[in-house]
């Protein structure tokens, strides 16, 4: 080995040694977060939900540094945190308590939507699991559990891409619109009544929400993968709502 090659070898060794701590520090948070996630799951199974939620919050803070490298981990963590909060909100019976956890779930779900929006198509394809449709459906559930149906209209209206909405979210949006303005449940039989439908769409405080829904439904039906008959039905429904909404002042 000549002196030059030896010097080159030493330089290479030093370079490798200098990069080692960086690699270890990048690996460590991911391992720690994965461990926290596993621990949180165990805690939820053991019934220590609040402890698990605190652990998930902490893990979420840690993932902000590694999100670009561990997409699956970030996705899983956001989904688990939101799901655990929402599930806990569903089990509680005291209004201030379940509203608190529903609000937390909503915040996490909106984080998921915002994070997902920022992903490039290539990164979206890299994801092992794409649960954006489930997330938007959960978002509506969280809004309803908060007792704030207006938030549901607001959140669904602000979804950055209509393809994020799945059939469940669309159905939930529509059924919630039927409860407007008094927020009383309406059965599926009652929904078939054209008079009730007109009255609901033309309620002063709800007409604009129906219009937003109809526009989104139209756009969604055009781009979402649906059977031809279903697509036609959805487009017809959107058109009908718009027509009724336009004629409301004359009723």
């Amino acid at each position: 080995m000549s002196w030059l090659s030896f010097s080159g070898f030493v330089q290479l060794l030093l370079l490798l040694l200098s990069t080692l701590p960086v690699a270890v520090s990048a690996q460590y948070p991911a391992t720690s977060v994965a461990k926290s996630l596993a621990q949180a799951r165990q805690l939820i199974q053991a019934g220590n939900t609040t402890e698990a939620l605190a652990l998930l919050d902490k893990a979420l803070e840690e993932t902000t540094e590694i999100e670009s490298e561990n997409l699956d981990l970030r996705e899983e963590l956001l989904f688990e945190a939101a799901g655990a909060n929402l599930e806990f909100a569903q089990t509680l019976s005291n209004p201030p308590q379940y509203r608190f956890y529903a609000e937390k779930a909503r915040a996490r779900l909106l984080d998921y939507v915002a994070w997902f929006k920022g992903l490039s198509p290539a990164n979206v394809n890299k994801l092992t699991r794409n649960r954006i449709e489930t997330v938007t459906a959960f978002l509506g559930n969280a809004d309803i559990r908060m007792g704030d149906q207006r938030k549901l209209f607001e959140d669904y209206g602000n979804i950055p891409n209509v393809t994020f909405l799945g059939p469940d979210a669309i159905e939930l949006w529509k059924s919630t619109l039927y409860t407007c303005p008094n927020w009383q449940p309406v059965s599926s039989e009652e929904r078939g009544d054209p008079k009730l439908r007109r009255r609901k769409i033309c309620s002063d405080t709800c007409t604009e929400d129906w219009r937003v829904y109809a526009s989104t439904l139209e756009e969604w039906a055009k781009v979402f993968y649906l059977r031809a008959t279903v697509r036609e039905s959805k487009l017809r429904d959107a058109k009908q709502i718009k027509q009724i909404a336009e004629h409301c002042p004359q009723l």
Partner: protein
Amino acid sequence: MNVSTVRRAASLAVGLIGAWSATLTAQVGAVALKSLQALPQVTASTTQHNRSVGAALDIRVRVANLTESDITLEKVEVFMPGEFLAAREGGSPPAQEPKPSSKLLHPGGVQAFLFTVPPGSLRWVTQWANPQLLAFVPGEYDVVVRTHFQVPPAGVESVDETLKVSFEPPLGVLVWGGVAGAVLLAAFVCTYRYLRQTPRTTLTVAILQALALAAGGAVSAAVAIILLDRLKGVELPVNVTVKDFYGGIVIGLFSYKIGDSLYTQFFGTATESPSPPTPPSPAPVARATPPTPAPVAPSTSPGP
């Protein structure tokens, strides 16, 4: 200002003061109620058939959510008193956690827990070797039931409930006290006789006498203690209530008298041997011979 105006003003002032105090009371009551509403209600009970410190014990704990909030039950712990644990050379029963599915107590929900304290491994023969058990003082002790709970989203808190439980030493400890008292008495009597009796007996004889006296006294004391524990209205030469080891020692110290008394109660006549522990007569001292009294003719009439 006339008298009627003064009266009206006075009555108005009294009325205002009364209303203010009533409002204040209501506010204080509301604050107190709110603080109470944030805690689960914990009640603990026990059915104690045997008060002996070595006996098994069941402690029932009932946690009720009388608040308006949902409460998460984390765990329930039972802390036995220190004297109890020292006497049994054991620990408190392990903490209990509710099942994951029933951890959440909705308003009005109730969870019950049963803590079983197993019987202590207190062998009758070896009880004398446990100084903590011998020194156990009978009485009412505090058993603390600690409930860890959480009112989401607040952190974990705990609330203590104290249960008063009476414990007393086992019968074996009292009997060992009686034996110790009898041994003390035998040692005293034999030492006293050995030192003061003339002519002095040999040491071997003194030891044998001591052993015999101790054995007899121990049996008498044991019988007396068992009778006192199980029978009411037992008449003994000494009026004593035996509750602990030291009470047993007292019985042991009076074991000869008690033995005579028991023998009389059982068989009607007292035995004359072994001789009662009376102090020996002092050695004859040389002194001037007193004048001999005149002989008196024996009386033929029966005594009174």
